[in-house]
C-alpha cells in the first residue's frame, strides 16, 4: 500500500528487506511439502527408499505407482461417488440456500424473525454427534449416498451470506414486479437469483469443495465399500496403510517400496483437480470471505 513519499530511513529499508525475505520463506514453507509429494510420486520407488530428507526433484522417473493407483478399482469408484456427491449435493445445497436466503431476507413477513431465530440458534447449540447419527439412521439414509447429501443440505453460515446478498437488492425491483402480478417464486428465481450471480458462484465453490473434501459422514454412515467416496478410500491408503491390494503380485520388499510412492501418487491424483482449478477460482473464494465478513 503506497503511503506518502517521505524518504525511507535505514530502519525502514532494513525492514523491507527482512519482510521480503520472511514472506519468501513463508512461500517456500507452504509450497515445498506439496512439491515434495510431487517429486516423490514420480520417483522410482527403490531410489526413493534410499534417499532421506529433502528432495530437489524426482529420484529417477517412474509412473509405476500411478499405474498401480489407476489399476485400483476403488480409486475409480471413489472418484465416481465423489462426483455424484459433489454435483448432487451442491445442487441441493444451492436450491435450499437460495430459498432460505430469500425467506430470511423478507423484511415484512411476520414469520421471518421466528425462523431466523430458530436458524441462528443452531449455530450455537446442537444435539451432538450421537443424536444426529441416530436421526439419520432413523430416516434409513445410512448406507446410501443420500446420507452425505441431505443432512448437510444447508450450511447456516453460507445461507447468511446468501441473505446478505439478497438484502442489498433494492426493494423497488421486487415491488414493481409484484405490481405486475409476479409471485414470490417468480421474484426469487427470475429477478433476484440472476442479480446475485457472484454470490452464487462463491457459494457453489464453497459447497463443492466441502463435498469434495468431506469424509467424516461417509465414514460413519457408509458400510458398503462400493459407495465410498474418494476421501474415504484415501483414508484407507494414507492413514490405515492399506496399500497392499494395489501392490499385490510384486515381491514383499518391492511391495513395501511401492506402497510409499503409491501414497504420494494417490495424494496427487486426488488433490490435483482442486489445485488446478484453484488459481482460476481464487478470486471468487476470496470474495466469499469478504462477503461473509459483512455482519449479517
Amino acid at each position, binding site marked *: 500500500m503506497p503511503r506518502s513519499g517521505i524518504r525511507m*530511513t535505514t530502519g*525502514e529499508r532494513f525492514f523491507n528487506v527482512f519482510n521480503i525475505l520472511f514472506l519468501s520463506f513463508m512461500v517456500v514453507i507452504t509450497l515445498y511439502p506439496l512439491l515434495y509429494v510431487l517429486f516423490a510420486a514420480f520417483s522410482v520407488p527403490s531410489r526413493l527408499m534410499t534417499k532421506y530428507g529433502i528432495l530437489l526433484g524426482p529420484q529417477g522417473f517412474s509412473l509405476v505407482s500411478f499405474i498401480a493407483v489407476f489399476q485400483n478399482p476403488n480409486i475409480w469408484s471413489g472418484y465416481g461417488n465423489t462426483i455424484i456427491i459433489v454435483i448432487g449435493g451442491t445442487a441441493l445445497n444451492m436450491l435450499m440456500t437460495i430459498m432460505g436466503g430469500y425467506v430470511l431476507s423478507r423484511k415484512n413477513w411476520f414469520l421471518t424473525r421466528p425462523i431466523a431465530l*430458530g436458524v441462528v440458534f*443452531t449455530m450455537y447449540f*446442537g444435539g451432538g454427534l450421537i443424536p444426529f447419527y*441416530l436421526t439419520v439412521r432413523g430416516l434409513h439414509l445410512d448406507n446410501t449416498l443420500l446420507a452425505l447429501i441431505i443432512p448437510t443440505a444447508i450450511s447456516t453460515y453460507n445461507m447468511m451470506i446468501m441473505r446478505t446478498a439478497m438484502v442489498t437488492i433494492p426493494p423497488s425491483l421486487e415491488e414493481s414486479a409484484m405490481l405486475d402480478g409476479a409471485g414470490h417464486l417468480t421474484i426469487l428465481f427470475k429477478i433476484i437469483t440472476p442479480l446475485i450471480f457472484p454470490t452464487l458462484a462463491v457459494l457453489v465453490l464453497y459447497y463443492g469443495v466441502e463435498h469434495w473434501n468431506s469424509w467424516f459422514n461417509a465414514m460413519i454412515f457408509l458400510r458398503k465399500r462400493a459407495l465410498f467416496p474418494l476421501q474415504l478410500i484415501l483414508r484407507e491408503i494414507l492413514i490405515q496403510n492399506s496399500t497392499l491390494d494395489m501392490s499385490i503380485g510384486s515381491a514383499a520388499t518391492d511391495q513395501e517400496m511401492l506402497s510409499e510412492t503409491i501414497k504420494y501418487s494417490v495424494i496427487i491424483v486426488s488433490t490435483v483437480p482442486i489445485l488446478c482449478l484453484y488459481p482460476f477460482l481464487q478470486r471468487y473464494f476470496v470474495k466469499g470471505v469478504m462477503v461473509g465478513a459483512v455482519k449479517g
Partner: protein
Amino acid sequence: MDQKNMTIRSRFLREMTKNGELYLIALPVIAYYIIFHYVPMYGAQIAFKDFSPSAGIEGSPWVGFRHFIDFFGSIYFVRVLKNTLVISATSLIFGFPAPIILALLINELRTRRFSRTVQTITYMPHFISMVVICGMIREFTSQAGLISVVLSYFGLPARTMLNDAGLFVPIYVISGIWQGVGWGSIIYLAALTGIDQELYQAASIDGAGRWKQTLHVTLPCLLPTIIVLLILRTGNILSVGAEKIILLYNAAIYETSDVISSYVYRRGLLNSDWSFSAAVGLFNSVVNFILVAFVNWLSRRTSETSLW
C-alpha cells in the same frame, strides 16, 4: 363468533393469496432445520436414558444423571477435558495472531505482484482435504520422513514423531497454522484495504514512521475485526473437531491426543455406548453454549463489539 371465524378465515385467505408461494419456499428450509437440527436436540434426551435401538428413544428407560456422574467420575473426564483445553488454547495462542501478522506483513509489501504471489500460495493449503493433510503429516513425521530427517540434522533423534505423546500438540498446532494462516489473513487484508488513507497521511505529517503508523493507525482500525474473531474462537475453546484428531492419533498417545469429540466418537459409534456418549456430547454442547454467551456478554460490556 361466526363473525370472528369469518375474519380469521378471510385474513388467512388473504395471507395465502399474497404469500402462499413464500410458505412453499420456506417449508423445505424449515423442515430441514427441524429434522436435522431440532430432532437431534430432542434426541439428546437419551443422555438421561438407557438407550437401546430396539426400544427407541421414547421407549428407553430414564436413568437421570447416571451417565453424567459416570463420566465425571471416570479418569477420562479429566484427560479429555485437559487435552481439549490444551489443544484449543495452544491453537488460539499461536494460531490466532499468525494470520494478523501475515496480513500486516503482506500489507507492507511495496510490489503488488509479489504480494499477489504470497497470497495465492499461502491460501492454497486451505483447499487440501483433511485426509490428505493428515496423510502428509503422517508420512513426513514418520521415522524416515521429511520432517524427522530434517530435524535429525539438528541433532534430534529420527523417530516416528506421532508415537511420542509429547509431540502431538505441537504437530497438531503447527500443521494447523501451516494450513490456515493464509486463508485466515484474507479477512484482515479486507479490513486493511478499508482503512482511510487520510489517517496515514495525517499520522505521517505528525511525524509517525511506519512502525508508529502500524501501531497507532492500522492496529486500532483492525481491532473490531480482531475482537469479533477472538470472541468466536474463545467461545469455541471447548470444541476441538474430531476429524483431524481421529486421523492423527493412535492408542499409544491417547494420553495427550484424545479430546471430547474423539472420545464421543469412539465410545458412541465404535463401542455403541449410545447414552453415555450422548451425555458426554451434551455436556460439551451446553458448556460451549454457555461459553459463547458469556464471552459475547463480556465483550459487549467492555468494548461494544459483539456477535449478537
